[in-house]
């Protein structure tokens, strides 16, 4: 049971890293990312391939996973900085699917759907086998703490305030000029680096990665974490990540109670449940469980709140 809890806590850690990263990107700058799985996969495969194929030591390979995320994040942000939220969503989703396609098809490199086996684990020869899971949890926790500190620092810095103030208003962002655009790209890239790091940590923990893990569904789990926690709120999303994992894992036990549920049906039910919950949460609490402190209402919602405008299609161009 302890072993199970430790492994669950480790997985929650990966979720927290991804959620912190998404919050940097979306919560801080309003830049939408649906390609989370892509950056996650990129970090995982970079680190894994460097250590498996080139035999690089992990202290080089794992940070390289983060760097790969950083570079890809910079590229995606540079290319799409002009796009509005919904179009950026499509481009990032495309990026994620592209990474998955490459991992699936280039099996001379990635072993394709069979999965890539990874032997190397950080500090494996320093600690005993019994204590290793705890050590790894500690490593992941340290990474989460580091990411949290960085995210909080960015949030509290004058830059963070500016970013949040302009995240709803692309026109203001343009007026403020290149400087702000550069900062937005930076913040997006840092978020992508977190995702890459999470991928590297994941790869060497499970020691077998395959493209099926990096489905776009990952993005929904992470979005769920951030939305539950309240966009822009770093404490809230950690709670959200824990909650999402609790739902994912909690439903596993349904199989023990209801015997016609096989593993496939269970996993389907799990996704259905998460999906319904996400929609219900958005419907009930558009600002999440723990709203971001000291921040004004989002403009578009304030308008919808008053319900004074008879704009049935929600284009909202009457104000």
């Amino acid at each position, binding site marked *: 049971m302890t072993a199970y809890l430790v492994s669950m806590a480790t997985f929650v850690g990966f979720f927290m890293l991804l959620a912190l990263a998404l919050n940097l990107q979306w919560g801080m700058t309003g830049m*939408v990312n*649906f390609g989370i799985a892509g950056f996650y996969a990129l970090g995982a495969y970079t680190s894994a391939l460097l250590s498996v194929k080139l035999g690089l030591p992990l202290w080089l390979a794992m940070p390289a996973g983060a760097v790969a995320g950083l570079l890809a994040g910079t590229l995606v942000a540079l*290319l*799409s900085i*002009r*796009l*509005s*939220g*919904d*179009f950026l*969503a*499509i*481009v990032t989703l*495309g*990026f994620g*699917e*592209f990474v998955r*396609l490459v991992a*699936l*098809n280039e099996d001379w490199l990635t072993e394709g759907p069979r999965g890539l086996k990874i032997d190397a684990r950080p500090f494996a020869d320093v600690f005993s086998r019994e204590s290793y899971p705890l050590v790894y949890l500690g490593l992941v926790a340290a990474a989460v703490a580091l990411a949290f500190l960085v995210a909080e620092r960015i949030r509290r810095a004058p830059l963070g305030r500016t970013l949040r103030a302009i995240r709803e208003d692309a*026109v203001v962002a343009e007026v403020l000029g290149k400087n702000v655009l550069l900062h937005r790209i930076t913040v997006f890239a840092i978020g992508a680096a977190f995702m890459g790091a999470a991928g590297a940590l994941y790869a060497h923990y499970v020691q077998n990665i395959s493209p099926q893990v990096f489905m*776009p*569904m990952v*993005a*929904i789990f992470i*979005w769920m974490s951030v*939305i539950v926690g309240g966009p822009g709120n770093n404490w809230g999303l950690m709670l959200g990540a824990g909650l999402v994992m609790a739902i994912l894992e909690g439903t596993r036990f349904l199989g023990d109670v209801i015997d016609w549920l096989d593993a*496939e*049906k269970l996993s*389907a*039910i799990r*996704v*259905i449940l*998460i*999906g*319904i919950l*996400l*929609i219900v949460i*958005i*419907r009930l609490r*558009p600002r999440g469980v723990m709203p971001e402190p000291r921040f004004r209402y*989002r403009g*578009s*919602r304030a*308008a*919808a709140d008053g319900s004074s405008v*008879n*704009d*049935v*299609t*929600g*284009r*909202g*161009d*009457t104000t």
Partner: protein
Amino acid sequence: MTAQLLVNGLVNAALIAPPAIALSLLFSVLRFPNFAIGGYITAGAFLAYAANAGAGLPLWGAALVAMAGTSLLVWLSDEIVFKPLRGQDPVTLLVVSIALTLIIEHVVRLIYSADVRGFDLPLQRPHRFAGIRITEEQLELLALAAAIAALTHLLLRYTRTGRAVRATADNPVLAEVRGVPTRRIVTAVWVYSGALFGLTGVLAGLDLVIEPLLGWNLTIPIFAAAILGGIGSPYGAMLGAVLVGIAEELTVLVLPSTYKVGVGFFIIAVLLLVRPHGLLGQPEIRK
């Protein structure tokens, strides 16, 4: 060889044109990219499968069942999920639509598992014209897509409701002021689009195989076609479908066919960067 690829490309285009038109129509009155279309198409395919292989209806009957059923599902998804969220920002609606597509896909998995299926149909020998192979079904698919494009054009241009749809897409507040019941017009668009998504499910099931990811795998080419045509412009969507369909086939000349899906993404990315409003689309006026 190339002629064959062009024909294949057109068949491809015929498959994605109707849903691209539907997506464009939906976007034009609702102003958010609805990723639930994958779920709708999958639902259409499985409804038709249930009616055909399950209840023993002929395929055309099954197709009608799928169109009606998907229309109903799409309408319900608006009533239950999207209508209460109207006025929220497009990104929130996009998250919700992706969640919805996952829900539909996994409900299908729950009932039918992930097995690959096909309709109960006799095998057909392809026709040959000047060295080009094309099956009866593919010919029907081409004719059907052309008919749908023409029908949509006629409806939009020459019927009262069609004009109201265009007016609502253009300026919803003014349409309301002139007495157009825009809520009912939006519902009509959902229902019409739903029928097209249902039909697409059937046609995709004929051309490909029936599985829960059927709709998701078509989502990107459909979006590519709609964006290529200037999202919100049904005429552009038809043209976009032809370009995407042919581009997908022609890449087979240089890339392994498994990357076909990537073509859609590539087109979207390049297009959004070069022309953020699509080829025929008008830039939206923002205050």
